[in-house]
């Protein structure tokens, strides 16, 4: 079940919210956990709930034991169990296919056929959102281990933190200290929905997703999904710009919907996008793009590796490692690791080139946008061969003149419109939703109605299986 589906909007949400509004205390928390589990079961297979429950139970128990345990070695063991359990589950469900494919390739190089033996690992279904809730529970356990957060003693409240459906399948990644106290508050006082801000922000997100991202996808996918990415110069660039905008509108639209839904339940989820295409440097980009993930990687990977407090060579290594793993988190393919390494290299480059800071902000923005956009090649191309073809196409190696393929004019118009929005307009976090004028409201109403009509066609979120 997607937020942008009639089943969610007409059947699930009114019931989930309607019942929640009448409850308080433990029954409210139980209802939030139950309805979230139901939502999750309908997001894919019913069994998706099983690994989520296992993670929830494991980390709930380990956090309490960590808080009670004083011996250093025992605490390290407990943390190790949590890390092994969480990362092990992620490795099995998400990365076993990649490892099996890589092993098969390695064996093939040696002339050994191990395809049959590895085939089982290639077909494991990936539970939606496993990457998100794994990082959330990991950060919670690490915070308790560091003594930075108390262990939650109420299992239902903890289950609500892990499974709260607005952020469950695609974020924003929420920390325990951000969500658990809010759950405790609504359990005590009952839900006080922020109707206006919730509904309007949800509508903005829905419109971004359905009217822009899905339309872009319908025009970009035929260009990029045909196998070969040997494209003529104009189409290669149009597809790249179109994809860069599609992924932004798709994911930020989803985040807006999630935050809007949170507000309907009286919960404030963290901001996830802050006009990333207005960034003036790669570093600035990562402070604005998928912010909750960037901050997670900084706090739980980059800083523990040594962060900035080490020699320059080690710092560069820390950056590259963090970004490569961050890239791999996005998908089980080496092309995602390459995307992460590309961004790691951009961050290193930015730090090592003092001239960057001397550039006028206009050029800083454009150079950053260009480099970030170029990186999407690795994110979108299914293989390195195709990424190579696409990069060559971008350099004009497959012809400079466009053949005027159908849909080109529409794509050009959408790209131009999208670029104008991301570079000029305020983002949804900056919109004054609490005092939005009548005219913008009418415009949003037309966009929302059009989106409601169009969502019957059905579509998937790009980040859905992460």
């Amino acid at each position, binding site marked *: 079940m997607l937020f942008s589906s*009639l089943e969610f909007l007409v059947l699930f949400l009114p019931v989930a919210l309607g019942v929640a509004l009448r409850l308080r205390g433990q029954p409210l928390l139980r209802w939030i956990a139950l309805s979230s589990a139901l939502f999750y079961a309908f997001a894919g297979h019913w069994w998706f709930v099983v690994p989520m429950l296992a993670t929830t139970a494991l980390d709930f128990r380990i956090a309490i034991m960590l808080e009670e345990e004083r011996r250093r070695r025992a605490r390290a063991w407990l943390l190790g169990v949590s890390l092994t359990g969480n990362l092990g589950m992620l490795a099995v469900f998400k990365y076993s296919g990649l490892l099996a494919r890589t092993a098969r390739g390695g064996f093939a190089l040696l002339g050994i056929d191990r395809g049959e033996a590895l085939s089982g690992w290639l077909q494991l279904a990936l539970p939606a959102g496993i990457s998100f809730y794994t990082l959330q529970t990991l950060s919670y356990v690490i915070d308790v281990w560091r003594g930075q957060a108390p262990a939650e003693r109420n299992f239902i409240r903890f289950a609500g933190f892990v499974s709260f459906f607005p952020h469950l399948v695609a974020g924003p990644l929420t920390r325990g200290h951000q969500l658990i106290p809010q759950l405790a508050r609504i359990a005590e006082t009952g839900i006080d929905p922020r109707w206006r801000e919730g509904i309007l922000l949800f509508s903005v997100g829905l419109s971004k997703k359905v009217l822009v991202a899905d339309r872009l996808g319908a025009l970009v996918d*035929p260009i990029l999904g*045909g196998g070969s990415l040997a494209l003529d110069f104009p189409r290669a660039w149009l597809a790249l710009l179109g994809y860069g905008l599609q992924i932004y509108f798709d994911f930020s639209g989803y985040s807006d919907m999630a935050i809007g839904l949170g507000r309907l339940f009286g919960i404030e989820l963290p901001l996830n996008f802050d006009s990333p295409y207005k960034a003036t440097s790669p570093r600035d980009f990562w402070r604005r793009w998928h912010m909750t993930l960037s901050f997670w990687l900084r706090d739980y990977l980059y800083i523990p590796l040594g962060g900035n407090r080490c020699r320059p060579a080690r710092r560069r290594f820390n950056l590259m490692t963090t970004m490569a793993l961050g890239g791999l988190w996005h998908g089980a393919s080496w092309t995602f690791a390459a995307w992460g390494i590309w961004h790691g290299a951009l961050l290193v480059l930015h730090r090592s080139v003092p001239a960057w800071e001397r550039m006028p902000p206009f050029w800083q923005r454009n150079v950053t946008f260009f480099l970030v956009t170029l990186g999407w090649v690795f994110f979108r191309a299914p293989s390195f061969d195709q990424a190579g073809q696409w990069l060559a196409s971008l350099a004009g190696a497959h012809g400079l003149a466009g053949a005027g393929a159908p849909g080109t004019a529409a794509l050009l118009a959408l790209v131009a419109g999208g670029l104008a929005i991301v570079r000029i307009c305020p983002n949804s976090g900056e919109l004054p939703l609490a005092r939005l004028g009548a005219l913008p409201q009418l415009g949003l109403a037309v966009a929302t109605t059009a989106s409601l009509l169009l969502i*019957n066609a059905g579509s998937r979120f790009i980040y859905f299986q992460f």
Partner: protein
Amino acid sequence: MRPFAAAVAVLLALVLAVNALAAVEARRRERRMEEAVAALRPGLALVFDGYVRERRFQELRLHVIPRPRVVALGSSRVREVSSEIAGVSPGEFYNLAMSAAAVEDDIALWSVLEGQGKVPELAIFSIDAWIFSAAHEQVRWLTLAPEVARFLEAAGAERGRLRQPARQAVHLWLEARELLSFEVFRRSLADLGRALPARTSKSRDLEAALGRDLVSEELVGDRHAIRSDGSLMRPATVDEPSTARLRQQASSYVAGGAYGLAGFRWDPLRAERLELLWRAMRTAGVRIVAYMPPYQPTAWALIEENPGYADALRSSAGFLRDLAGRVGARFLDLSDPASVPCGEEEFRDPDHAAPSCLRRIWQRLLPPAPARP
């Protein structure tokens, strides 16, 4: 927030009103279709603008046609096969195919045929791999759910007392959500646009309406129509797509998931239901020939490049080959257009063969009887 809420409410009410009006108009047209179905004779065709409830049409039609000797079952990919293309004498052939037909659709139509005592000698199944995918939504058959339930109950395969009410609830919901669909809204506007002049004309009586709906096959012209043998006639004036256009469509088609091949997940329930159907048909003495229809060559090449899509086709063909062996049917995997063979231009689009290709397929399925000395 009042302007926002009021505007959304008014706009949604407008959409619902247009769709509801169009639904009333569609019911009126359907009543006309019911009359026309009975009057449809060889040489005539039932013309329709836009949408026609195919499942209802076929169900009604089966009540009035004589017992066919050969029937075709499957999706829109076999919809154009007429008695002429099949090489079967008129009156002996009937095409039961429907767009996006699932196993359950075939079950329902078989159930009606059997109930009417019109068991054919030979059934030709055109089978798409997506019918075996649990990831591919297959819901149109719910229109015929009671027939399916009857068959499954008789076969002892209907599990759970809540199945039928659950199906009805799902069907009701799916019909309700249609009222809020862009595609339906667009179609409704077009339907109402066509209906308005008809309402103002003087010829509102049934005879005149039938005169508009039922025409000689030669007079169909630029409209869609259904022949008396159930086959589909496409508008004569539509230009055949160029090879370049077909290649482009093929690439978009495969990129878009190759209609049900993306995320293919084997559905044992549907496989089991197909086996039940074939066993029931074989018990009734029906010979079965099944095939997987060809893709346009560019689409086929791209599908072969995609391991997931190629696996979906291979596993479906493997199952069908085994099943055919178990029940005494014949199966041909013709997914590769070279196996027919069909050329690049012998397709309407990436997965719909043009009549010349369909004719060649059916020659493979029904080889002409050897001439007697």
